[in-house]
């Protein structure tokens, strides 16, 4: 499923790149014809976003194919942002010079139409892009949409500047160019700050990990995380997580677990654009099994008993390494079967063996990815042996 989410995101980013490329070429070409500085700077703005988008696409593709895009990616983004700020500073200087030259923009009609075309294209594209990412990666969609909307605003300014220029208020157009450049520089400085902080300080990366760990490791069959890292990239983050799964879980249930992890990860860390998520079956592990017992050796019905036999079973030896009886008392005002199941889940139980169980309790256990097996035998020892034999195979 995550292949779909990020694949889809990449497709959308590619469309975005296409829109931007078109707009950049249009604006730069029209600058050459008309010498309109505000159109030039709009084009430069587009280039900045284009570079970011290409890098984002690169990151997503790498993660999807299991390769790790290095930290250098963030560093290169930092470098390009700083470069762009310098270029913009230079352009501000040039525009300032142009202000005093008192010239009309050449081919004002073409220049004006370009701004209008840019306006329309960015408007439509922003709506479509954001909509198509709304369900999966809404933050990415919103960012890209906002980028396009900034281009829209900037083009609107440019259009206004050109109209003023045609009405012989010549200095207005380069002045707008300077204004636009300042807007871009401000945004760039913010992005530079974020990327720098992301590289230099680990807090944010660690926060992502902590949040994910805390929630995901609540599930008993998800044993722990190994090989987890995240990188901050401008507005976004990407990384890889490897989870170790209890050997008791059949592989055909991995997709569902993966779906859970991914959805929660994206929800709690919305700036994540690509994650290499792998679930690894543990070769050696301790499996926690619980049996609902009526007394010492008889299996009881889950709903009616409050005594449980907790077993630690080593894998792959399939030997019982620990053995204790616990009482689960539940306040009578609770939905007792559900609460009992919940208490067991909090004890990190992975499998329940019982004589019978209500739907309620079973549903609660299932919600924790815990399996319930109805035993054939009434004797606890036998039932456990039977179950252990079945997992040996």
């Amino acid at each position, binding site marked *: 499923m995550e292949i779909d989410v990020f694949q889809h995101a990449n497709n959308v980013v590619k469309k975005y790149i296409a829109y931007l490329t078109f707009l950049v070429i249009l604006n730069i070409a029209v600058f050459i014809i008309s010498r309109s500085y505000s159109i030039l700077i709009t084009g430069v703005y587009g280039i900045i976003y284009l570079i970011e988008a290409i890098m984002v696409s690169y990151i997503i593709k790498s993660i999807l194919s299991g390769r790790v895009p290095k930290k250098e990616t963030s560093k290169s983004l930092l470098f390009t942002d700083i470069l762009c700020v310098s270029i913009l500073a230079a352009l501000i200087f040039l525009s300032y010079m142009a202000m005093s030259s008192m010239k009309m923009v050449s081919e004002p009609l073409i220049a004006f139409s370009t701004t209008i075309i840019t306006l329309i294209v960015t408007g439509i594209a922003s*709506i479509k892009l954001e909509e198509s990412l709304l369900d999966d990666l809404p933050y990415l969609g919103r960012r890209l*949409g906002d980028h396009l*909307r900034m281009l829209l605003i900037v083009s609107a300014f440019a259009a206004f500047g050109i109209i003023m220029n045609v009405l012989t208020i010549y200095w207005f157009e380069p002045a707008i160019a300077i204004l636009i450049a300042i807007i871009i520089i401000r945004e760039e400085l913010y992005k530079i700050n974020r990327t720098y902080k992301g590289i230099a300080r680990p807090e944010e990366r660690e926060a992502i990990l902590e949040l994910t760990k805390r*929630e995901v490791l609540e599930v008993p069959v998800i044993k722990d995380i190994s090989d987890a890292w995240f990188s901050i990239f401008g507005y976004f983050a990407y990384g890889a997580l490897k989870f170790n799964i209890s050997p008791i879980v059949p592989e055909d249930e991995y997709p569902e677990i993966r779906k859970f992890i991914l*959805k929660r990860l994206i*929800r709690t860390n919305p700036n994540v654009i690509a994650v290499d998520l792998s679930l690894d079956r543990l070769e050696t592990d301790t499996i926690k099994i619980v049996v609902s017992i009526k007394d010492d050796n008889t299996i009881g019905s889950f709903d009616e008993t409050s005594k449980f036999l907790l077993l630690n079973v080593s894998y792959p030896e399939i030997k019982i390494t620990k053995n204790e009886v616990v009482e689960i008392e539940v306040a009578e005002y609770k*939905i007792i079967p559900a609460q009992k199941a919940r208490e067991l889940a909090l004890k990190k139980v992975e499998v329940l063996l019982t004589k019978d169980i209500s*739907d309620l309790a079973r549903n609660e256990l299932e919600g924790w990815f815990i399996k319930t097996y109805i035993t054939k035998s009434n004797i606890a020892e036998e039932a456990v042996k039977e179950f252990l034999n079945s997992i040996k195979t």
Partner: protein
Amino acid sequence: MSDDVLIKVENLKKYFPVRRFIFSKDYVKAVDGVTFEIKKGETFGVVGESGSGKTTLGRVILRLIEPTDGHVYFEGEDIFKLKGKKLLEFRRKAQMVFQDPFSSLDPRMTIFQIIMEGPITHGMKIDDPEEFVVSLLRKVGLERVHLHRYPHEFSGGQKQRIAIARALSLNPEFIVLDEPTSALDVSVQAQILEMLRDFQREFKFTYMFISHDLSVVKYMSDRIAVVYLGQIVEITSSDELFERPLHPYTRILLSALPIPDPEITRKKKIKEEIVGEPPSPINPPLGCRFHTRCPYAMPKCRYKEPHMVEYEPKHYVACWLYEKD
């Protein structure tokens, strides 16, 4: 649609846009996929806290607001497709009594004008308008002398009676009562509620009774729908809701409800611990909307939305405790 069903609501949605940026909106998902039926002659209670969307639901059902998605069928017809005369006819048959008696009556119209406004708009032929309005006023416990007075001259309870008289003037079949007694004192509330029940018996009205006060809803309703953050979490008969509440939110509501009997309320049967505040309807939680406050929440609840299932006969609930995947 079977004969005794008056209203059928199917996957009704109402989103209110909240402007964020040009061409970019967030949505307040006030009503997000609501499905239920109301039978002829019954009182269907809708209970929920603030932000649950129950008021919006009442308005969309009467087409006072256009929906974002979904259908509402009144006597078999899709009300959002009605036009012209048929729409007018629907509006006559489906009336509303609002929560705030202070703002639902036009302060610049006399009582006579307020009550006649409906019949005039619908072109009803009335031989003697004054007698007509007086008989309505008498029905709600007011007098002829009140005919040409203005709303500000009346108390809250009297204003609400006028609002009810106004609803009655069109001889409706279905009335949405949106918190009709929330702003009134206990004794006045009792009067109004009994009056509403008498009218229902006499004129065979169908009511949709919306309120946040579960005690009042229970008293008035045959069946109750519990709403949380734009979705219905449980529907069943009012007795069953109190005897066997299934959804954890319903249980919490019942636990929080102060019962006017100290012997009972201090030894409550259900005492679920109530945690947290209702989340924002702009960015509701992923999966089951209630999971952030649910004492039984499991990892599954955090990423998958449960569906409405008929767990017991005529008892519907949307919760992973009661639904198999």
